[in-house]
């Protein structure tokens, strides 16, 4: 009963997974080309007796038929024995593929098992296996194969075993490193905590994540085995009864095809080898691109051109004159879309405005996925390739950053506005000293600096500014603690005396005490250097400690924007109010925290009306159909108090 219900379900899941995989694979051009090339050969090998015009063992009917050039009766000409090269080519595919696949099968099983055992069990076993692998790796394959094959009877089976038994080393290494990587992941620890045994962990957790790598590896091993077989046969060590492509080359070469000029006897089998190996390589590359997402580099591609706002240039000039004492940074009605091919664009950020004065600290608050990082990247025009500014301006000292060309914006990046990214651990190069990396940041952006004493002094000055003693300059990132790495990142951001620092969740991964240290540091920096700081975070508590102004974002739009005191004590938007309520307040502990039910909207499925409506406790009919406008609240204590909520219409 039990098995009968379970089996079809599991099969179903495999079918779903395979169809999903095929859907992705069919979009991969390299992989598809490789697969097509292979299918042709495999098809030829399977139907060889039907395709080949002559029997493989038929020899010349007449003596004069040796080395005949290609003709209508012999498409690829004939060889030294008067046999049809095309027929031999077709049957040769069989031999080459059989040797390739079976030898690779042996290699993959041995290499996979050894790699898995070494990676999973570790200890002495691993040491032994890996040293053995190392020894096998330094022995040149081909000479060893030649020796072994020469000592044994040259039969097809022997060749398969020799190639298979010698070709597993790289597979063992690849599988071991992948097993090690998977083994150290938290879900394996969780499975152990659940009580799962080793067998269960290997079959359910390790293998599913090792298999993709193994598939790619298998494809490469097959092509290697085919090459090895060809080489052995070419050297005359192949099975004389099984005519592979390598064997054909051997015969042609040894029996004077070159001197006669019978190029066809050499070209076609050679072409077969190249075709199969190329097909396998392309297939392997295609598979790797799909199965190994780390190869995805779209972030390095330049962003899309900015679509300028509706405001004409003339009008813009006038406005610039009106705001004579313009703030340091003014963001006006900025909107950003993510372009999805074949789908309507995702409106990631819509109509965001805020200002930032010298020495001011603005908190940009929102849950993950609310568009805050997108907004920050857009300020410096660092959006990934799918992102596009579709409206609005970013005025820095009156200069519209969205209208600058790539070279001009590059001059602003880091020198005027710099960024401290989340996760300082990954942003530092592990093999260079921290001081060296800070020096690099200075030189790259300030050509005036040479690699001299002055540069070293500047590095020490920057480290001092962020509270790192000068003797840590020569240390590597791994010698730094999490808090010190974040300080080093801040030092790097300060390298060119910027006017604005964007701090994107700089304290999120840190302990509360270290978080307090970093907040104190940022606060002191803005007082000391007159820095303006945009502090991006999901934590309203952190913002309350140091910010002057707060912009609360929800689903890509402004929920509320006001002075920090107003936000915490007189907030008008239900989202801000709910966020504050969700905060554990230690001054008055209670049994249950209030929380906001549901989740933020996905960018590809934004609600029709107010984006917060589905989670809002105060939502009424209109909220679900009509997006609220930004209301400026004049009765507020704050000079600029803006909130977008239908409930505020009356108080406008």
């Amino acid at each position, binding site marked *: 009963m039990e098995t009968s219900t379970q089996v079809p379900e599991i099969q179903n899941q495999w079918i779903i997974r395979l169809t999903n995989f095929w859907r992705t694979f069919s979009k991969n051009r390299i992989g598809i080309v490789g697969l097509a090339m292979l299918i042709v050969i495999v098809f030829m090998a399977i139907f060889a007796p039907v395709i080949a015009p002559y029997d493989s063992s038929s020899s010349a009917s007449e003596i004069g038929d040796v080395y005949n050039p290609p003709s209508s009766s012999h498409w690829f000409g004939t060889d030294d024995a008067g046999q049809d090269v095309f027929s031999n080519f077709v049957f040769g595919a069989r031999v080459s593929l059989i040797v390739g696949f079976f030898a690779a099968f042996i290699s993959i099983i041995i290499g996979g098992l050894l790699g898995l055992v070494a990676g999973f069990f570790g200890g002495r076993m691993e040491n032994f296996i890996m040293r053995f692998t190392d020894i096998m790796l330094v022995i040149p394959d081909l000479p060893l194969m030649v020796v072994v094959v020469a000592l044994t009877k040259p039969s097809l089976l022997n060749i398969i075993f020799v190639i298979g038994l010698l070709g597993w080393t790289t597979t063992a290494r690849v599988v071991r490193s992948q097993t090690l990587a998977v083994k150290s992941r938290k879900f394996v*620890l*969780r499975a152990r905590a*659940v*009580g799962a045994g080793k067998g269960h962990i290997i079959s359910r957790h390790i293998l*599913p994540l090792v298999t993709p790598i193994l598939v790619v590896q298998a494809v490469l091993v097959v092509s290697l085995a085919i090459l090895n077989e060809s080489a052995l046969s070419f050297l005359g060590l192949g099975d004389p009864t099984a005519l592979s492509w390598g064997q054909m080359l051997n015969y042609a070469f040894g029996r004077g095809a070159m001197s006669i000029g019978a190029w066809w006897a050499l070209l076609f089998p050679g072409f077969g080898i190249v075709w199969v190996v190329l097909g396998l390589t392309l297939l392997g590359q295609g598979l790797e691109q799909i199965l190994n997402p780390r190869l995805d580099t779209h972030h390095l591609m330049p962003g899309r051109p900015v679509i300028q706002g509706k405001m004409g240039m003339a009008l813009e000039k006038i406005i610039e004159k009106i705001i004579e004492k313009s703030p340091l940074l003014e963001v006006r009605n900025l909107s950003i879309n993510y372009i999805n091919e074949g789908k309507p664009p995702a409106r990631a950020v819509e109509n965001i405005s805020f200002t930032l004065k010298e020495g001011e600290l603005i908190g940009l608050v929102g849950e993950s996925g609310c568009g805050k990082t997108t907004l920050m990247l857009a300020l410096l025009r660092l959006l990934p390739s799918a992102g596009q500014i579709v409206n609005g301006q970013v005025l820095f000292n009156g200069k519209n950053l969205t209208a600058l060309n790539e070279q001009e914006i590059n001059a602003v990046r880091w020198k005027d506005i710099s960024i401290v990214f989340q996760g300082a651990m990954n942003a530092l190069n592990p093999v260079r000293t921290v001081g060296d990396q800070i020096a690099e940041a200075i030189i790259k952006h300030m050509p005036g600096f040479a690699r001299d004493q002055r540069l070293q002094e500047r590095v020490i000055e920057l480290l001092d500014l962020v509270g790192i003693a000068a003797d840590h300059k020569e240390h590597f990132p791994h010698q730094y603690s999490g808090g010190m790495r974040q300080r080093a990142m801040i030092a790097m951001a300060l390298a060119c005396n910027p006017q604005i620092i964007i701090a994107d969740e700089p304290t999120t991964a840190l302990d*509360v005490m270290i978080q307090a240290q970093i907040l104190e540091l940022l606060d002191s920096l803005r007082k000391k250097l007159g820095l303006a700081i945009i502090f991006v975070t*999901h934590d*309203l508590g952190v913002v309350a400690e140091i910010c002057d102004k707060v912009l609360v974002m929800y689903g890509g739009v402004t929920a509320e924007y006001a002075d920090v005191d107003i936000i915490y004590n007189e907030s008008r938007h239900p989202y801000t109010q709910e966020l504050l309520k969700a905060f*554990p307040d230690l001054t008055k502990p209670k049994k249950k925290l209030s*929380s906001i039910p549901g989740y933020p909207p996905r960018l590809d499925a934004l609600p029709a009306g107010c984006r917060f409506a589905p989670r809002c406790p105060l939502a009424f009919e209109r909220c679900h159909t009509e997006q609220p406008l930004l209301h400026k609240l004049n009765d507020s204590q704050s000079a600029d108090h803006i909130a977008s909520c239908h409930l505020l219409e009356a108080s406008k």
Partner: protein
Amino acid sequence: MSKDNFLEVRGLKKYFDADRPSFFSREPRYVHAVDGIDFQLRHSEVIALVGESGCGKSTLALLLMGLEEPTEGAILFEGRDITHLNDNERKGLRRKIQMIFQDPYESLNPTQTIEEIINEPLVVHGIGNNKNERDERVKKAMEDSGLKPAEVYLQRFPHELSGGQRQRVVIAAALVLEPEILLADEPVSMLDVSIRAEIINLLAELRITRQIAVIFITHDLGSVGFFADRVAVMYLGRIVEIGTMLEVLEKPQHPYTKALISVIPVPNPRLRHERIILQGETPNPIDLPSGCRFHPRCPLAMATCKASDPPFITLSKTHQAACLLLVK
């Protein structure tokens, strides 16, 4: 069996081998990750273990789960010594003590569906006579964890869920075994504040509905303070202060506890207050400071702190702290 010693930890120590300072050095060195911990956990009690990274709280969790072997000391569960068990005995115990991990992105296998993930513990322990029975348990665990209706999530993969939902999956996969103790290692620190509240509420609810005791490990006293019964503050492998939640939050006695409480962000600029920001970070647990381990960072350190290791001072029936300032 007394109600008081449901889970008891006695003098627990875990030292890891450290790299020697040089190739020629003979003297072995140890990382004193956990260095003498005692505490008791009662039935359906919530205890918070609080401390900065490097204080040994995660190692303590692994020791309690039997995923690491302690160097010294004992762990007793319902009066039975469970410090050293063979695989079989350990497996039976695992049903009673389950763990939730910090990072819900990392602690779920990306190739498994939610159903496979939550069903897995049942398969491992051979629970349930047929698929229907297991399905029922999976469904109940999911709905108790707030994944309602369960059918919506069963066939999804982890990457299709939000961070909060993933953490609920992790909780469901623990609940499905109907454990009596839940060990939560920083279960909310990777989540948005708005989602944190939901997960903490969920845990608070479970201890009432399912009578589960919770050991909540965190660096952020603020995230747990209000729902824990007791708080134990850890520093460099030891507990420096332990007491009821109100005792520790309102009358902290150890300078380290005071500092930790002062840096909890308060979501109101009008309540901005003096923070005691300790300089530097937890020293490495290889070369421990002499005397009181906290003295190099302590704002109140005296000359004697360098010399003598402070004893545990009993302040009330439930409240203890280890500081020389408290010695009268």
